Structure formats: C-alpha cells, structure tokens
C-alpha cells in the first residue's frame, strides 16, 4: 500500500531528476534554439527561444563548402559508420 509520504517523496525525486536534467541539457537546448536564430542575433539574443525564426542556417549549411555539399559529408560518414559497425561486431 502506498502511503501519502511515499507519494510526496516520489514527486520530489521526479522534480529533482528533471531539474538536474534540464540544467545539464541547457547547452544543448540552447544550441537547438540558436540554430533557428539569424546569425547576427545568436549572441545578442541569449534566450533559448528565438525572437525571430529562420531556416536559412539549415539551408546554407546543407550547401557545405564550395562544390562539396553536406550530402557528400553524410554519405562519407554513413559509409564509415556502417562498415566499422559491421566489422566491429564480427571481429
């Protein structure tokens, strides 16, 4: 049987875990938020939620550098990832 004291303890434990987790994930959440900010506002707008949304970071990023785009980068990473995972699992 669950007592009232148990429930309060459980609630406090959950709250503690969530608070600690949010504190730890803060930089990553901020990074996700920053990816939608216009590049001149990334450091002037310190909050997580962007004041202006833009997707140009993703569009420009996908173009990569010069003639080599992110599709090539991903393809290379996938080849390495798949081959090394298979080889590691077998040997």
């Amino acid at each position: 049987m669950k007592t009232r004291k148990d429930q309060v303890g459980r609630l406090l434990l959950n709250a503690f875990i969530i608070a600690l987790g949010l504190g730890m994930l803060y930089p990553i959440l901020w990074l996700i938020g920053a990816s939608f900010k216009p590049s001149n506002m990334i450091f002037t707008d310190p909050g997580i939620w962007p004041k202006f949304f833009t997707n140009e970071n993703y569009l420009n990023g996908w173009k990569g550098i010069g003639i080599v785009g992110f599709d090539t980068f991903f393809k290379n990473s996938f080849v390495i990832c798949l081959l090394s995972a298979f080889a590691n699992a077998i040997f």
Partner: protein
Amino acid sequence: MFVGTDRLPKDERFLNSMVVTFKFVFISVPLKLIFALAVAMLMNKKLKLIPLYRTLYYIPTLLGGSVAIAVLWRRLFAGDGLINMILTNVFGAQNLPAWISNPKYALYTLILLAVWQFGSPMIIFLAGLQQIPREYYEASSVDGAGKIRQFFAISLPSLSPIIFFNFVMQMISAFQSFTQAFIVSGGSGGPLDSTMFYSLYLYIKGFGFSEMGYAAAMAWVLLIIIAGLTAISFRASGSLVSYGSGE
C-alpha cells in the same frame, strides 16, 4: 641518437604540458566517477519515467566529444558568454572573469566539459548496481542499517571492481584528450599554455613545428606513462577491490 628523448626533460613547455595533463586527469576523472555514480544511483530508483530520464542523461555523452559542443563551450564561458550573463542577471554577480581566456580558470572549464560527459561510466555503474542482490539490502535493513551505512557497507564494496574498471578506462582516455583543448583554445593551448594538453603539444610539435621525431618521442613517453599508471592502479587495487563471490 636519442635526440628526441634527450630533449624532452629540458623543454619547459613539455614539462608544463605534462603538469596540465596530470591536473586534468586527476581532477576530472574522480569528479566524473563520483557524479556518474550519484546519477546511476538516482537512475536505479523505481519510477515510471526512468527509461526517459536515462535517455536524457545520456545525451551529453553522445554529443559531448564533438567539435560542435567544444565550440559551444567556448562561447558559453567567454567573457560575454551565456554563463556570465546568467550569473549577472540571475544571481547579480559582478566583475566576473572571462573563464576561457583567463589562465587561472581555462583548465577548469575543460574539466567541467569532461565531467559533463559522465554517461558511459554511469551506464556501467547502473548495470553494476542492478547486479547487487536485493537480499543484502533487506538483510541489512532488518539489522537496522540506514541508507548511508548500506551505501558504504554494501553498494561501494560490491561495486569496487566496476569503479576500478571505470577509473582505469577513464584515466586512459583522459590522458589522450585532445579535441576539447584544441577547439576551446583555438589550437594554441592558450591562454599562457594553461590548456596545453600533452596530445595537443604533441600535435603542435609534430604538425606545427614539423618536428616529427620529437612528436614520436612524446607519443612513446605518453604510452609508457599510461602503461605505468595502469600497472600501478592494478597493484594498488589488490587491497581496495573485492572480487569476492559475496559469500
């Protein structure tokens, strides 16, 4: 003949890189293990959302070694960075230093970055905690042992082989850490060589100054240091680690 190895002890930047690396290893590894064990004990509780929590707490480890996080870290701890902004606006702190560009604190930001990636020792600790038979705890609570007593008398001794394993693995990888220092210091090991890790100096010597022989000598010395420290840990572990079957 032994040009590289003869020059090593006379090179002050080399000796400094050794001091910085040892400081990094022996501060970051214990902190990381303590934090990993604490979180593993939290994650060992019986709550409905535990699978979700375990996933969330592992995220920093998945991303932490990447260049993106190192760049982010550099911005976070800059003089006008996010950390100082929060400390000023929320806690009203004044005259805060620029953590990354102050030789006194730069190394500690890197230690924090290392501790933040506590996920893999945490997973191993968690597996270890779940292998401890419940009867031990039940029997000891019948005998009147409190939670703290149980931790020191049951959990810690049962986990000692796992703590030892984690310590050796984390020590080895901490000695080789390179990416964080390279990115955060902009490849210079600065300010004032305060984040000049061993492998960063090796890289700078080998590829910056094109002294490949010197760098190769350094690589050998690092291998010997790591092997030596691992051997010492194994010796010292004899009296600290119990591999008993629990009888």
